[in-house]
């Protein structure tokens, strides 16, 4: 833990509407809303000096906003002890995945957490836990939800009412309890590893989809194919799709049975479609020729 009073950057990118007062209910929509909002959340100042950063009123999970968040983190991290990224619950997991792929050599905690009053994943207590985690002796992107601190690379949320899961690096009960984790290295200078390659196509295979109806152009820099587990897919269908692609085009397939043969060079994953897409965007943006290596790295725990 930090010996002196810690400083924590809090990046506001959505999820800022809380019950409790008109100011909190409105949330942070512009930079001018930040200070009145923080005044209503006076308890945050009991933990650390808050360095507020307005990023956006909210976003739906897009590469441009993730890249903007990453740049803000890089700018602030050298002068604070940790950072918290507050976002709407619906895109919190994807944001964690995206930031983990984007930022390299993070020597301090970067805590992504869902905001708002959704009890399943947010609340004022959640934000308090996230800020406290940002002062802990760990490094790298982590995800805080409820009382769990999860390695951001492994966080999963299946879209139902189940809480997020993943590799736990710590637990929050009456304080922070860390398990096996990477310790803080304050002298590391973080960098943005990559930019996202935005031109990634996604398709979901269904009985109505005929491979002959598909066409791909030179602007398509990669493809993610989602297989519906209820429907399945025949190897011939995949082979037909492969004939329509450039030989070197990065292709990720998700949701298919592990014993199903897939065309040579494709990458198989169990991640949901959105997660696989974000990772492929980052992998192709990092190094198109070595995209498989980066996909393996993004999919493996730290």
């Amino acid at each position, binding site marked *: 833990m930090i010996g002196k009073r810690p400083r924590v950057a809090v990046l506001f990118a959505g999820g800022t509407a809380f019950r409790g007062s008109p100011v909190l209910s409105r949330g942070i929509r512009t930079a001018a809303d930040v200070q009145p909002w923080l005044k209503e959340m006076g308890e*945050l100042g009991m933990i650390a000096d808050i360095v507020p950063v307005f990023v956006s009123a909210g976003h739906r999970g897009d590469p441009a906003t993730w890249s903007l968040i990453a740049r803000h983190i890089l700018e602030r991290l050298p002068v604070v002890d940790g950072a918290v990224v507050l976002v709407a619950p619906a895109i919190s997991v994807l944001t964690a995945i995206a930031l983990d792929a984007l930022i390299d050599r993070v020597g301090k905690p970067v805590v992504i957490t869902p905001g708002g009053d959704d009890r399943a994943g947010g609340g004022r207590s959640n934000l308090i836990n996230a800020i406290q985690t940002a002062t802990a002796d760990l490094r790298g992107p982590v995800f805080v939800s409820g009382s769990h601190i999860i390695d951001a690379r492994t966080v999963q949320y299946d879209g139902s009412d189940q809480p997020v899961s993943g590799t736990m690096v710590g637990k929050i009960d009456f304080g922070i309890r860390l398990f096996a984790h990477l310790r803080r290295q304050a002298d590391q200078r973080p960098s943005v590893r990559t930019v996202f390659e935005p031109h990634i196509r996604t398709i979901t295979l269904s009985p109505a989809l005929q491979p002959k109806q598909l066409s791909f152009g030179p602007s398509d820099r990669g493809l993610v194919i989602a297989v519906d587990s209820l429907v399945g897919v025949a190897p011939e269908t995949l082979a037909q799709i492969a004939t329509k692609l450039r030989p070197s085009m990065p292709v990720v397939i998700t949701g298919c049975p592990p014993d199903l043969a897939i065309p040579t060079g494709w990458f198989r994953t169990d991640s949901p479609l959105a997660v696989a897409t974000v990772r492929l965007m980052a992998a192709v943006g990092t190094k198109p020729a070595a995209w498989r290596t980066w996909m393996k790295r993004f999919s493996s725990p730290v």
Partner: protein
Amino acid sequence: MMRCYCHVPESTDPSLTATAGRIRSILDRPDVVVTTNRDAQATAAESPRENEPALERMDAFIIEGTTSDAEIGFLLAHAIALKKPTLYLYQRGTVAKVFSHLALHELPTWIKVVSYHDKSLERHVEQFLMQAGGKSIRPTPRIKFTLRITSLIEEYLNQKTLNTKTSKADWLRDQLEHMMDQDQDWQRHLRRRASSDE
């Protein structure tokens, strides 16, 4: 049954160690379930997957805040957000660290900041328990008081407690507490003492 979390920072200061023990003994009663920061560390790894926030299960917090401790700010932040009655104690003659971050008037009413000395610690904790626990919490009688009575008084006490589950001692305590509630001079004295403690 009241659940109370008590945080006394780990310290080499013998007075703080003694304070932790004294608070623990006050809380050692059948109507209070107490967890301390030392207990929490010992049981932290037992259920790593459980996601129910432990702090939200507590009804009240007691914090010894004489020294700086990184977790105190965290506990106070939760106490404010969750609206949990909290007693923040600090040794008289020192400055409460909580005032570094929030002025007294900015603290919500459910956070009580009290300076204590050696003789007042138990009283402050018991008063807090009664206020936070409402009628479910009663102070534990700890002072032995020998009183010789006449046979007529004994007969009276027997009659008042016959076929009840109340002991003669409990009945007498109830009568005294009722008199104290009704005694305006006594209530004035309590109010004067409460304001001089703040």
